[in-house]
């Protein structure tokens, strides 16, 4: 456990050294700039657009960090040959993988938490810019704690993306890992099409294959409840629990796979 914590903290410190947290500046600039521009460009709906922009930016910045740091976590150690030194210490291979994953997860959590705080600050400021009669017809208040549900699922989605990137980085190059991770993330948004494939093809075999893929591939579309929270539509607690459980079990599966593959790698 000590080794896992130590590796995780090192990954976190390294990401801070690599100026990953600079993304927060870009996020804040995007959000503040967007808030001023949107009022000039559109007729009404400013608050909805700011919320959409903020949630999408949190998801995108998180995704970029998860993919581009996740793919180098293992590869960098192998490439620099620092893996030899590491594994010669009392660090077991599964601790190395779990520690790396936990470190990046911690980086993402800190990042998302700070982006969320900045997001709510901008919303609180925007709230003061509208008269009472306009605020009265918004489906939800500007500083709506209900949006945390969408952010929570974004975090679970990012944890899953990180696990995917780490999984691929245990056996392939960063370029290929990035391609595979982003590819699966994209495919994961078409899950509904895979489920309904039988409606567009006559072949039972193809339909069964698509149905199998529907169950096996990560369903990233399930984590997206941004539209629902912005419009203050109900999101049942059971949905949040099931989706979170789905994400975490998938993460456990990928980490197990990564540990198995990494454990079998020969670094001689």
């Amino acid at each position, binding site marked *: 456990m000590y080794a896992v914590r130590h590796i995780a903290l090192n990954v976190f410190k390294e990401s801070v050294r690599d100026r990953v947290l600079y993304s927060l500046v870009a996020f804040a600039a995007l959000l503040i700039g967007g808030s001023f521009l*949107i009022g000039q*460009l*559109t*007729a*009404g*709906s400013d608050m*909805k*657009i700011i919320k*959409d*922009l903020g*949630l*999408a930016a949190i*998801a995108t910045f998180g995704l970029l960090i998860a993919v581009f740091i996740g793919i180098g976590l293992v590869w960098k150690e192998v490439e620099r040959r620092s893996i030899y030194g590491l594994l010669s210490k009392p660090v077991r291979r599964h601790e190395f993988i779990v520690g790396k994953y936990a470190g990046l997860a911690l980086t993402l959590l800190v990042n998302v938490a700070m982006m969320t705080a900045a997001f709510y600050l901008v919303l609180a400021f925007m709230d003061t810019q509208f008269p009472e009669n*306009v605020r009265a*017809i918004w489906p939800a208040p500007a500083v709506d704690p209900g949006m945390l549900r969408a952010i929570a699922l974004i975090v679970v989605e990012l944890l899953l993306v990180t696990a995917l990137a780490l999984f691929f980085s245990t056996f392939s190059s960063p370029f290929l890992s990035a391609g595979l991770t982003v590819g699966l993330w*994209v495919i994961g*948004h*078409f899950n509904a*099409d895979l489920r309904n494939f039988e409606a567009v093809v006559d072949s039972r075999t193809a339909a069964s294959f698509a149905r199998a893929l529907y169950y096996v591939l990560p369903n*990233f*579309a399930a*984590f*997206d409840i*941004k*539209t629902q929270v*912005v*419009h203050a*539509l109900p999101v049942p607690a059971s949905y949040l629990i099931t989706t979170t459980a789905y994400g975490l079990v998938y993460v456990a599966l990928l980490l197990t796979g990564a540990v198995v593959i990494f454990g079998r790698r020969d670094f001689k």
Partner: protein
Amino acid sequence: MSRSALVLILVLSAGVIGLQAVHERRGGPLAAATENFLYVQSPEAMQRLALSYDALLADLYWIRAVQHFGSTRLSQDPNKQYDLLYPLLDLTTSLDPRFRLAYLLGAIFLSEPPPGGPGRADLAIALLEKGRRADPREWQYPLSIGFVHYWWRQDYQEAAAWFLRAADLPKAPEWLRPLAATTLAQGGSRESSRVLWRQILDTAEVNYLRSEAMRRLDQLDAMDQLDALRAAVNAYRDRFGASPDGWEDLRRAGYLRGNPVDPTGTPYRFADGTVSLDATSPLHPLPTEPVRLR
């Protein structure tokens, strides 16, 4: 950074800015590049391409729809084309089916007659029907459909039926039933139009809608004032056996106290014995007088 590198960066920056200025002075991009174009028109395709950014893309298409409507409306082109307006609104509302303002304001844009809009009341109703399918409990959609029937189609029976449908929905305001009754009893009268626009003014969520309602109310006032001025001209003609030469004659005869101006402060026109709204007035052109129940 060495001094020569700094100089080079400054020179190159000046070059880029200078060339951009030359480019702009020569008229900017070539005509073909500025033509309005929508690469993806299929809402189904765009829903898939959007991945998890459907709401954000809906916002972008909404901004584009507002810009397209506004820039076309303000352009000096005598042949204004709003071809992209409905496809943009359709994409917006397909990507975010709960985008209430895109339905409500989009319908107003679509039904505005040329040159201020495309004059497509049919598409406005289609858009609002789409909104109703997405959220059948929202009373503003049937109210807006009734409004399109009332104002642009002058079909008061249909308008009253939609107002009643809106009144049946949860959270509907109490004034909807009286509005339906007034529409049926005296649809098309200025007074019933005034009631409708006043309600829109009171419940408007955005500045555009508020100023549009105020403009329409001013137009109704201007129509009343024009009627009164025409009555004064006729009374003068009956009394003196000839048309007045101008406002001065009417004032001297005691029909007016000063030069009449419309609600925006623009003087009314008086030429060849005829009173009319000045073409430079923000209220020009006045809406067509309803004909069916007048």
